Protein backbone atom coordinates (compact mmCIF):
# COMPACT_ATOMS: atom_id res chain seq x y z
CA UNK A 1 0.00 0.00 0.00
CA UNK A 2 2.57 2.52 1.13
CA UNK A 3 5.06 1.41 -1.50
CA UNK A 4 2.91 3.05 -4.15
CA UNK A 5 3.18 6.36 -2.36
CA UNK A 6 6.95 6.65 -2.25
CA UNK A 7 8.04 9.81 -3.98
CA UNK A 8 11.76 9.56 -3.49
CA UNK A 9 14.05 6.69 -2.49
CA UNK A 10 17.70 6.81 -1.41
CA UNK A 11 20.43 5.63 -3.81
CA UNK A 12 17.92 5.06 -6.58
CA UNK A 13 18.35 6.66 -9.99
CA UNK A 14 15.05 5.69 -11.59
CA UNK A 15 11.64 7.10 -10.76
CA UNK A 16 9.32 5.82 -8.06
CA UNK A 17 5.84 4.50 -8.91
CA UNK A 18 3.97 7.51 -10.25
CA UNK A 19 0.52 6.47 -11.48
CA UNK A 20 -1.48 7.22 -8.36
CA UNK A 21 -2.51 10.80 -7.85
CA UNK A 22 -0.19 12.32 -5.32
CA UNK A 23 -1.57 12.70 -1.84
CA UNK A 24 -1.63 16.20 -0.51
CA UNK A 25 1.40 16.99 1.65
CA UNK A 26 0.98 16.84 5.41
CA UNK A 27 2.68 18.90 8.10
CA UNK A 28 3.07 19.14 11.82
CA UNK A 29 2.83 22.66 13.22
CA UNK A 30 4.57 23.22 16.54
CA UNK A 31 3.48 26.46 18.18
CA UNK A 32 6.34 27.30 20.51
CA UNK A 33 4.32 30.14 22.06
CA UNK A 34 1.85 27.55 23.38
CA UNK A 35 4.35 25.00 24.64
CA UNK A 36 4.58 24.59 28.42
CA UNK A 37 7.48 22.15 28.33
CA UNK A 38 5.59 19.26 29.93
CA UNK A 39 7.31 16.66 27.73
CA UNK A 40 4.11 14.68 27.25
CA UNK A 41 5.07 14.50 23.57
CA UNK A 42 8.37 12.84 24.50
CA UNK A 43 6.52 10.26 26.57
CA UNK A 44 3.92 9.65 23.86
CA UNK A 45 6.70 9.18 21.30
CA UNK A 46 8.41 6.62 23.54
CA UNK A 47 5.14 4.84 24.19
CA UNK A 48 3.93 4.60 20.61
CA UNK A 49 7.31 3.72 19.14
CA UNK A 50 8.33 1.33 21.94
CA UNK A 51 11.44 3.31 22.82
CA UNK A 52 13.05 3.53 26.25
CA UNK A 53 16.13 5.68 26.65
CA UNK A 54 18.70 5.11 29.39
CA UNK A 55 18.01 6.96 32.61
CA UNK A 56 20.37 9.93 32.58
CA UNK A 57 21.77 12.29 35.19
CA UNK A 58 20.32 15.64 36.19
CA UNK A 59 22.87 18.27 35.30
CA UNK A 60 20.78 21.20 36.53
CA UNK A 61 18.76 22.01 33.43
CA UNK A 62 15.27 21.03 32.34
CA UNK A 63 16.42 19.26 29.18
CA UNK A 64 15.93 15.54 29.72
CA UNK A 65 17.42 13.66 27.99
CA UNK A 66 20.15 16.11 27.04
CA UNK A 67 20.16 15.19 23.37
CA UNK A 68 18.36 13.21 20.70
CA UNK A 69 19.33 9.54 20.71
CA UNK A 70 18.32 6.39 18.89
CA UNK A 71 15.75 5.98 21.68
CA UNK A 72 14.69 9.63 21.97
CA UNK A 73 13.38 10.81 18.62
CA UNK A 74 12.16 14.07 20.07
CA UNK A 75 13.46 16.18 22.96
CA UNK A 76 12.40 19.51 24.42
CA UNK A 77 15.14 22.11 24.15
CA UNK A 78 14.86 24.70 26.90
CA UNK A 79 16.34 28.13 26.22
CA UNK A 80 16.19 30.73 28.99
CA UNK A 81 16.32 34.16 27.41
CA UNK A 82 17.01 37.40 29.30
CA UNK A 83 15.01 40.23 27.80
CA UNK A 84 16.07 43.87 27.59
CA UNK A 85 13.68 44.88 30.38
CA UNK A 86 15.35 42.45 32.77
CA UNK A 87 12.60 39.85 32.67
CA UNK A 88 13.14 36.36 31.32
CA UNK A 89 11.45 34.24 28.75
CA UNK A 90 11.36 30.48 28.25
CA UNK A 91 11.68 29.36 24.66
CA UNK A 92 10.93 25.65 24.60
CA UNK A 93 11.47 23.97 21.27
CA UNK A 94 10.41 20.44 20.50
CA UNK A 95 13.44 19.20 18.56
CA UNK A 96 13.33 16.30 16.11
CA UNK A 97 13.26 15.53 12.42
CA UNK A 98 11.94 18.45 10.35
CA UNK A 99 10.90 16.22 7.41
CA UNK A 100 12.52 18.43 4.76
CA UNK A 101 10.98 18.64 1.32
CA UNK A 102 14.55 18.23 0.03
CA UNK A 103 16.01 15.86 2.65
CA UNK A 104 19.80 15.94 3.04
CA UNK A 105 19.79 12.52 4.72
CA UNK A 106 18.14 10.93 1.71
CA UNK A 107 20.53 12.66 -0.67
CA UNK A 108 23.55 11.38 1.26
CA UNK A 109 22.35 7.82 1.89
CA UNK A 110 24.19 5.21 -0.23
CA UNK A 111 21.90 2.25 0.59
CA UNK A 112 19.04 1.81 -1.89
CA UNK A 113 15.71 2.26 -0.13
CA UNK A 114 17.10 2.86 3.36
CA UNK A 115 15.56 6.34 3.36
CA UNK A 116 12.32 7.15 1.58
CA UNK A 117 10.16 10.20 1.21
CA UNK A 118 6.47 9.43 0.94
CA UNK A 119 4.15 11.38 -1.33
CA UNK A 120 2.69 13.09 1.73
CA UNK A 121 6.14 14.51 2.53
CA UNK A 122 7.11 12.27 5.44
CA UNK A 123 10.79 11.25 5.38
CA UNK A 124 11.20 7.78 6.83
CA UNK A 125 14.15 5.50 7.60
CA UNK A 126 13.54 1.94 6.42
CA UNK A 127 15.92 0.54 8.98
CA UNK A 128 16.20 -2.97 7.56
CA UNK A 129 17.99 -1.46 4.53
CA UNK A 130 20.26 0.73 6.66
CA UNK A 131 23.95 -0.25 6.57
CA UNK A 132 25.05 2.03 9.41
CA UNK A 133 27.47 4.23 7.47
CA UNK A 134 26.22 7.45 9.08
CA UNK A 135 26.10 9.40 5.81
CA UNK A 136 22.60 10.61 6.79
CA UNK A 137 24.19 12.35 9.78
CA UNK A 138 26.54 14.20 7.42
CA UNK A 139 23.68 15.01 5.07
CA UNK A 140 21.21 16.40 7.64
CA UNK A 141 21.23 20.21 8.06
CA UNK A 142 19.53 19.89 11.47
CA UNK A 143 21.75 17.26 13.17
CA UNK A 144 18.91 14.80 13.73
CA UNK A 145 19.74 11.16 12.87
CA UNK A 146 21.39 9.02 15.55
CA UNK A 147 23.08 5.65 15.14
CA UNK A 148 22.14 3.01 17.68
CA UNK A 149 24.85 1.28 19.71
CA UNK A 150 22.68 -1.84 19.66
CA UNK A 151 22.40 -2.46 15.94
CA UNK A 152 24.46 0.32 14.27
CA UNK A 153 21.45 1.54 12.34
CA UNK A 154 20.24 5.13 12.09
CA UNK A 155 17.02 6.28 13.73
CA UNK A 156 14.92 9.42 13.90
CA UNK A 157 11.32 10.64 14.13
CA UNK A 158 9.12 8.92 11.55
CA UNK A 159 6.35 11.50 11.97
CA UNK A 160 4.48 8.35 13.07
CA UNK A 161 4.21 7.34 9.41
CA UNK A 162 2.50 4.15 10.58
CA UNK A 163 -0.22 6.16 12.33
CA UNK A 164 -0.58 8.75 9.58
CA UNK A 165 -0.92 5.98 7.03
CA UNK A 166 -4.11 4.76 8.72
CA UNK A 167 -5.55 8.21 9.28
CA UNK A 168 -4.32 8.91 12.82
CA UNK A 169 -2.32 11.92 13.94
CA UNK A 170 1.24 11.43 15.26
CA UNK A 171 1.48 10.34 18.91
CA UNK A 172 2.98 13.66 20.05
CA UNK A 173 0.12 15.59 18.45
CA UNK A 174 -2.46 13.31 20.03
CA UNK A 175 -1.10 13.87 23.51
CA UNK A 176 -0.19 17.58 23.57
CA UNK A 177 -2.31 19.08 26.38
CA UNK A 178 -2.15 22.70 25.18
CA UNK A 179 -2.72 22.10 21.49
CA UNK A 180 0.75 23.43 20.75
CA UNK A 181 1.30 20.58 18.27
CA UNK A 182 -1.15 20.30 15.40
CA UNK A 183 -1.17 18.04 12.39
CA UNK A 184 -2.94 18.09 9.02
CA UNK A 185 -2.60 19.12 5.41
CA UNK A 186 0.43 21.37 5.01
CA UNK A 187 -1.76 24.02 3.41
CA UNK A 188 -4.05 24.06 6.47
CA UNK A 189 -1.11 24.17 8.84
CA UNK A 190 0.34 27.16 6.98
CA UNK A 191 -3.03 28.87 7.23
CA UNK A 192 -3.34 28.18 10.96
CA UNK A 193 0.26 29.24 11.46
CA UNK A 194 -0.35 32.55 9.69
CA UNK A 195 -3.42 33.17 11.84
CA UNK A 196 -1.49 32.46 15.00
CA UNK A 197 1.30 34.74 13.86
CA UNK A 198 -1.27 37.54 13.47
CA UNK A 199 -2.51 36.91 17.02
CA UNK A 200 1.02 37.02 18.35
CA UNK A 201 1.79 40.23 16.51
CA UNK A 202 -1.30 41.84 18.04
CA UNK A 203 -0.03 40.77 21.43
CA UNK A 204 3.30 42.51 20.96
CA UNK A 205 5.45 39.84 19.31
CA UNK A 206 6.36 42.01 16.32
CA UNK A 207 8.66 39.45 14.78
CA UNK A 208 6.47 36.37 15.13
CA UNK A 209 6.52 34.08 12.13
CA UNK A 210 6.23 30.55 10.77
CA UNK A 211 9.48 28.60 10.39
CA UNK A 212 9.24 26.72 7.10
CA UNK A 213 12.80 27.15 5.77
CA UNK A 214 12.95 27.40 1.98
CA UNK A 215 16.63 26.44 1.81
CA UNK A 216 15.51 22.81 2.16
CA UNK A 217 12.38 23.33 0.06
CA UNK A 218 10.23 23.92 3.12
CA UNK A 219 9.65 21.39 5.89
CA UNK A 220 6.82 19.10 6.92
CA UNK A 221 7.45 20.01 10.54
CA UNK A 222 7.04 23.74 11.04
CA UNK A 223 7.32 26.03 14.03
CA UNK A 224 5.44 29.12 15.06
CA UNK A 225 8.21 31.27 16.54
CA UNK A 226 7.60 34.35 18.69
CA UNK A 227 10.95 35.66 17.41
CA UNK A 228 11.11 34.40 13.85
CA UNK A 229 13.80 37.00 13.11
CA UNK A 230 16.12 35.16 15.49
CA UNK A 231 15.65 31.39 15.13
CA UNK A 232 19.03 30.87 16.79
CA UNK A 233 17.47 31.88 20.13
CA UNK A 234 15.64 28.56 20.04
CA UNK A 235 18.59 26.35 20.95
CA UNK A 236 20.43 27.26 17.76
CA UNK A 237 17.68 26.52 15.29
CA UNK A 238 19.45 27.28 11.97
CA UNK A 239 18.48 30.62 10.39
CA UNK A 240 18.77 29.42 6.81
CA UNK A 241 19.29 25.65 6.77
CA UNK A 242 20.53 24.17 3.50
CA UNK A 243 22.11 20.95 2.40
CA UNK A 244 25.84 21.65 2.88
CA UNK A 245 27.71 22.49 -0.36
CA UNK A 246 30.16 19.70 0.54
CA UNK A 247 27.28 17.20 0.58
CA UNK A 248 25.90 18.64 -2.68
CA UNK A 249 29.29 18.21 -4.31
CA UNK A 250 29.80 14.71 -2.89
CA UNK A 251 26.33 13.36 -3.62
CA UNK A 252 25.50 15.64 -6.55
CA UNK A 253 27.67 16.64 -9.48
CA UNK A 254 30.69 14.54 -8.47
CA UNK A 255 28.80 11.26 -8.89
CA UNK A 256 28.10 11.35 -12.65
CA UNK A 257 31.24 13.36 -13.40
CA UNK A 258 33.79 11.13 -11.68
CA UNK A 259 32.05 7.93 -12.78
CA UNK A 260 32.14 9.19 -16.37
CA UNK A 261 35.79 10.24 -16.12
CA UNK A 262 36.81 6.82 -14.78
CA UNK A 263 34.83 5.13 -17.56
CA UNK A 264 36.51 7.34 -20.17
CA UNK A 265 39.93 6.44 -18.73
CA UNK A 266 39.20 2.71 -19.09
CA UNK A 267 37.91 3.18 -22.63
CA UNK A 268 40.88 5.41 -23.40
CA UNK A 269 43.25 2.63 -22.36
CA UNK A 270 41.31 0.11 -24.46
CA UNK A 271 41.39 2.27 -27.57
CA UNK A 272 45.05 3.11 -27.02
CA UNK A 273 45.70 -0.61 -27.24
CA UNK A 274 43.51 -0.93 -30.32
CA UNK A 275 45.22 1.97 -32.15
CA UNK A 276 48.82 1.84 -30.88
CA UNK A 277 49.19 -1.74 -29.72
CA UNK A 278 51.61 -3.09 -27.14
CA UNK A 279 55.27 -2.29 -26.66
CA UNK A 280 57.02 -5.50 -27.56
CA UNK A 281 60.73 -5.91 -27.04
CA UNK A 282 62.57 -7.79 -29.68
CA UNK A 283 64.88 -10.16 -27.83
CA UNK A 284 67.04 -10.82 -30.88
CA UNK A 285 67.66 -7.14 -31.59
CA UNK A 286 68.75 -6.47 -28.03
CA UNK A 287 70.95 -9.50 -27.96
CA UNK A 288 68.88 -11.41 -25.37
Amino acid sequence: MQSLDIQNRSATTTSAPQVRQAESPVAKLIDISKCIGCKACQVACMQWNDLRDDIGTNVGVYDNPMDLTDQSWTVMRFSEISKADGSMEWLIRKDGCMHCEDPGCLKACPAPGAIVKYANGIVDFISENCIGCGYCIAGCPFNIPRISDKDNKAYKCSLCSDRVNVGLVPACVKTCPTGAIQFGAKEDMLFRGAKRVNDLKERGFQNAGVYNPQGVGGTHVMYVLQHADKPELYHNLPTDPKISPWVSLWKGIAKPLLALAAGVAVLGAFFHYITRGPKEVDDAKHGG
Partner: protein
Amino acid sequence: MAVVMKSGEVPRYNANERVTHWVVAILFILLAASGLAFFHPAFWFLTGLLGGGTWSRILHPFLGVVMFAFFFLMAVRYWQDNIIQPHDREWQKRLSDVINNRDDDLPAIDKYNIGQKQLFWTMIVTMILLLVSGIILWRPYFADMFAIPVIRIAAVVHMLAFFVLLMGIIVHIYSAIFWVRGSMRAMTRGTVSHAWAKHHHALWYKRVTGQSK
Protein backbone atom coordinates in the same frame (compact mmCIF):
# COMPACT_ATOMS: atom_id res chain seq x y z
CA MET B 1 70.65 -13.17 -0.45
CA ALA B 2 71.98 -14.97 -3.41
CA VAL B 3 70.18 -14.11 -6.59
CA VAL B 4 69.55 -17.10 -8.78
CA MET B 5 69.92 -15.80 -12.30
CA LYS B 6 68.68 -18.13 -14.92
CA SER B 7 70.04 -17.30 -18.28
CA GLY B 8 67.93 -14.70 -20.02
CA GLU B 9 66.36 -13.35 -16.86
CA VAL B 10 67.02 -10.31 -14.69
CA PRO B 11 65.60 -10.33 -11.15
CA ARG B 12 63.33 -7.34 -10.46
CA TYR B 13 61.13 -8.21 -7.47
CA ASN B 14 61.87 -10.83 -4.82
CA ALA B 15 59.18 -13.01 -3.24
CA ASN B 16 58.59 -10.61 -0.34
CA GLU B 17 58.12 -7.70 -2.69
CA ARG B 18 55.72 -9.64 -4.86
CA VAL B 19 53.63 -10.79 -1.89
CA THR B 20 53.45 -7.24 -0.53
CA HIS B 21 52.40 -5.86 -3.91
CA TRP B 22 49.67 -8.45 -4.37
CA VAL B 23 48.31 -8.02 -0.86
CA VAL B 24 47.92 -4.31 -1.62
CA ALA B 25 46.47 -5.07 -5.06
CA ILE B 26 43.87 -7.55 -3.80
CA LEU B 27 42.85 -5.24 -0.97
CA PHE B 28 42.65 -2.35 -3.44
CA ILE B 29 40.19 -4.30 -5.59
CA LEU B 30 37.99 -5.13 -2.58
CA LEU B 31 38.20 -1.56 -1.28
CA ALA B 32 37.53 0.00 -4.66
CA ALA B 33 34.53 -2.26 -5.22
CA SER B 34 32.91 -1.56 -1.86
CA GLY B 35 33.86 2.11 -2.01
CA LEU B 36 32.37 2.55 -5.47
CA ALA B 37 29.19 0.95 -4.15
CA PHE B 38 28.91 3.66 -1.48
CA PHE B 39 29.78 6.31 -4.07
CA HIS B 40 27.15 5.68 -6.75
CA PRO B 41 24.05 3.47 -6.84
CA ALA B 42 25.14 2.15 -10.26
CA PHE B 43 27.89 0.26 -8.41
CA TRP B 44 25.72 -0.92 -5.50
CA PHE B 45 25.86 -4.52 -6.80
CA LEU B 46 29.57 -4.53 -5.92
CA THR B 47 28.65 -4.74 -2.22
CA GLY B 48 28.04 -8.42 -3.01
CA LEU B 49 31.79 -8.94 -3.11
CA LEU B 50 32.11 -8.41 0.64
CA GLY B 51 28.77 -9.99 1.53
CA GLY B 52 26.25 -7.16 1.26
CA GLY B 53 25.91 -3.50 2.17
CA THR B 54 26.31 -3.81 5.92
CA TRP B 55 29.29 -6.18 5.66
CA SER B 56 30.88 -3.81 3.17
CA ARG B 57 30.43 -0.93 5.62
CA ILE B 58 31.92 -3.03 8.42
CA LEU B 59 34.88 -4.49 6.50
CA HIS B 60 35.88 -1.59 4.21
CA PRO B 61 37.72 0.46 6.86
CA PHE B 62 39.54 -2.53 8.37
CA LEU B 63 40.72 -3.64 4.93
CA GLY B 64 41.74 -0.05 4.29
CA VAL B 65 44.00 0.03 7.32
CA VAL B 66 45.62 -3.27 6.32
CA MET B 67 46.14 -1.98 2.78
CA PHE B 68 47.74 1.17 4.13
CA ALA B 69 50.09 -0.85 6.34
CA PHE B 70 51.27 -3.01 3.42
CA PHE B 71 51.48 0.04 1.16
CA PHE B 72 53.65 1.69 3.79
CA LEU B 73 56.11 -1.22 3.52
CA MET B 74 56.26 -0.69 -0.24
CA ALA B 75 56.72 3.05 0.17
CA VAL B 76 59.67 2.54 2.52
CA ARG B 77 61.22 0.02 0.14
CA TYR B 78 60.83 2.00 -3.07
CA TRP B 79 60.93 5.69 -2.25
CA GLN B 80 64.60 6.12 -3.11
CA ASP B 81 64.07 4.49 -6.52
CA ASN B 82 61.32 7.03 -7.18
CA ILE B 83 63.20 10.27 -6.71
CA ILE B 84 62.82 12.16 -9.97
CA GLN B 85 66.18 12.62 -11.75
CA PRO B 86 67.27 14.92 -14.61
CA HIS B 87 67.23 11.98 -17.06
CA ASP B 88 63.54 11.46 -16.18
CA ARG B 89 62.80 15.00 -17.34
CA GLU B 90 64.55 14.31 -20.63
CA TRP B 91 62.53 11.12 -21.00
CA GLN B 92 59.34 13.02 -20.20
CA LYS B 93 59.97 15.42 -23.10
CA ARG B 94 59.56 12.41 -25.36
CA LEU B 95 56.22 11.43 -23.87
CA SER B 96 54.37 11.57 -27.18
CA ASP B 97 56.92 9.12 -28.62
CA VAL B 98 56.42 6.88 -25.58
CA ILE B 99 52.65 6.93 -26.07
CA ASN B 100 53.01 6.18 -29.76
CA ASN B 101 55.44 3.31 -29.13
CA ARG B 102 58.33 5.07 -30.88
CA ASP B 103 60.76 4.24 -28.11
CA ASP B 104 63.91 2.95 -29.75
CA ASP B 105 66.10 5.94 -28.85
CA LEU B 106 64.57 7.23 -25.63
CA PRO B 107 66.93 8.60 -22.96
CA ALA B 108 68.20 5.83 -20.67
CA ILE B 109 66.41 5.69 -17.33
CA ASP B 110 66.76 3.82 -14.04
CA LYS B 111 64.43 1.30 -12.36
CA TYR B 112 61.32 3.41 -12.92
CA ASN B 113 60.24 5.88 -15.58
CA ILE B 114 58.79 9.25 -14.66
CA GLY B 115 55.22 8.03 -15.09
CA GLN B 116 55.84 5.27 -12.58
CA LYS B 117 57.54 7.73 -10.24
CA GLN B 118 54.66 10.18 -10.48
CA LEU B 119 52.25 7.34 -9.73
CA PHE B 120 54.36 6.44 -6.69
CA TRP B 121 54.17 9.96 -5.24
CA THR B 122 50.50 10.25 -6.17
CA MET B 123 49.88 7.05 -4.24
CA ILE B 124 51.81 8.36 -1.23
CA VAL B 125 49.62 11.49 -1.10
CA THR B 126 46.29 9.81 -1.86
CA MET B 127 46.88 6.88 0.50
CA ILE B 128 47.58 9.29 3.37
CA LEU B 129 44.49 11.36 2.50
CA LEU B 130 42.38 8.19 2.28
CA LEU B 131 43.64 6.95 5.64
CA VAL B 132 43.03 10.23 7.46
CA SER B 133 39.63 10.97 5.89
CA GLY B 134 38.66 7.31 6.23
CA ILE B 135 39.26 7.35 9.97
CA ILE B 136 37.11 10.48 10.27
CA LEU B 137 34.28 8.68 8.42
CA TRP B 138 34.70 5.37 10.31
CA ARG B 139 31.56 4.30 12.14
CA PRO B 140 30.89 3.30 14.78
CA TYR B 141 34.41 3.82 16.18
CA PHE B 142 35.73 7.24 15.20
CA ALA B 143 33.20 9.41 13.34
CA ASP B 144 31.46 10.48 16.55
CA MET B 145 34.66 12.18 17.69
CA PHE B 146 34.48 14.67 14.82
CA ALA B 147 32.19 17.62 14.15
CA ILE B 148 29.68 17.10 11.34
CA PRO B 149 31.26 19.75 9.02
CA VAL B 150 34.59 17.91 9.36
CA ILE B 151 32.91 14.62 8.41
CA ARG B 152 31.43 16.27 5.30
CA ILE B 153 34.83 17.53 4.19
CA ALA B 154 36.35 14.12 4.91
CA ALA B 155 33.73 12.49 2.65
CA VAL B 156 34.67 14.79 -0.23
CA VAL B 157 38.41 14.32 0.37
CA HIS B 158 37.97 10.52 0.52
CA MET B 159 36.05 10.57 -2.76
CA LEU B 160 38.50 12.85 -4.62
CA ALA B 161 41.61 11.08 -3.31
CA PHE B 162 40.17 7.74 -4.41
CA PHE B 163 39.30 9.15 -7.82
CA VAL B 164 42.86 10.37 -8.40
CA LEU B 165 44.24 7.04 -7.16
CA LEU B 166 41.84 5.11 -9.39
CA MET B 167 42.90 7.05 -12.49
CA GLY B 168 46.54 6.25 -11.67
CA ILE B 169 45.76 2.59 -11.07
CA ILE B 170 43.87 2.32 -14.37
CA VAL B 171 47.02 3.49 -16.18
CA HIS B 172 49.16 1.20 -13.99
CA ILE B 173 47.09 -1.90 -14.72
CA TYR B 174 46.83 -1.13 -18.43
CA SER B 175 50.56 -0.53 -18.76
CA ALA B 176 51.61 -3.55 -16.77
CA ILE B 177 49.21 -6.12 -18.19
CA PHE B 178 48.45 -4.96 -21.71
CA TRP B 179 50.69 -2.20 -22.97
CA VAL B 180 54.29 -2.87 -21.94
CA ARG B 181 54.74 -6.54 -22.75
CA GLY B 182 57.06 -8.48 -20.50
CA SER B 183 56.30 -6.33 -17.43
CA MET B 184 53.78 -8.59 -15.78
CA ARG B 185 56.23 -11.39 -15.06
CA ALA B 186 58.28 -8.99 -12.94
CA MET B 187 55.44 -9.07 -10.42
CA THR B 188 54.33 -12.68 -10.96
CA ARG B 189 57.62 -14.55 -11.30
CA GLY B 190 60.00 -11.84 -10.16
CA THR B 191 62.13 -11.51 -13.28
CA VAL B 192 62.20 -9.71 -16.60
CA SER B 193 64.13 -10.52 -19.77
CA HIS B 194 67.49 -8.92 -20.48
CA ALA B 195 65.98 -7.35 -23.56
CA TRP B 196 63.10 -5.84 -21.56
CA ALA B 197 65.43 -4.46 -18.92
CA LYS B 198 67.82 -2.97 -21.46
CA HIS B 199 65.07 -1.49 -23.57
CA HIS B 200 62.92 0.07 -20.84
CA HIS B 201 65.35 0.67 -17.97
CA ALA B 202 68.87 0.79 -19.36
CA LEU B 203 70.47 2.52 -16.37
CA TRP B 204 68.89 0.03 -13.98
CA TYR B 205 70.03 -2.84 -16.18
CA LYS B 206 73.56 -1.54 -16.06
CA ARG B 207 73.37 -1.10 -12.32
CA VAL B 208 72.11 -4.63 -11.52
CA THR B 209 74.06 -6.59 -14.09
CA GLY B 210 77.15 -4.49 -14.69
CA GLN B 211 76.51 -4.86 -18.39
CA SER B 212 75.50 -2.16 -20.80
CA LYS B 213 74.98 -4.17 -23.95
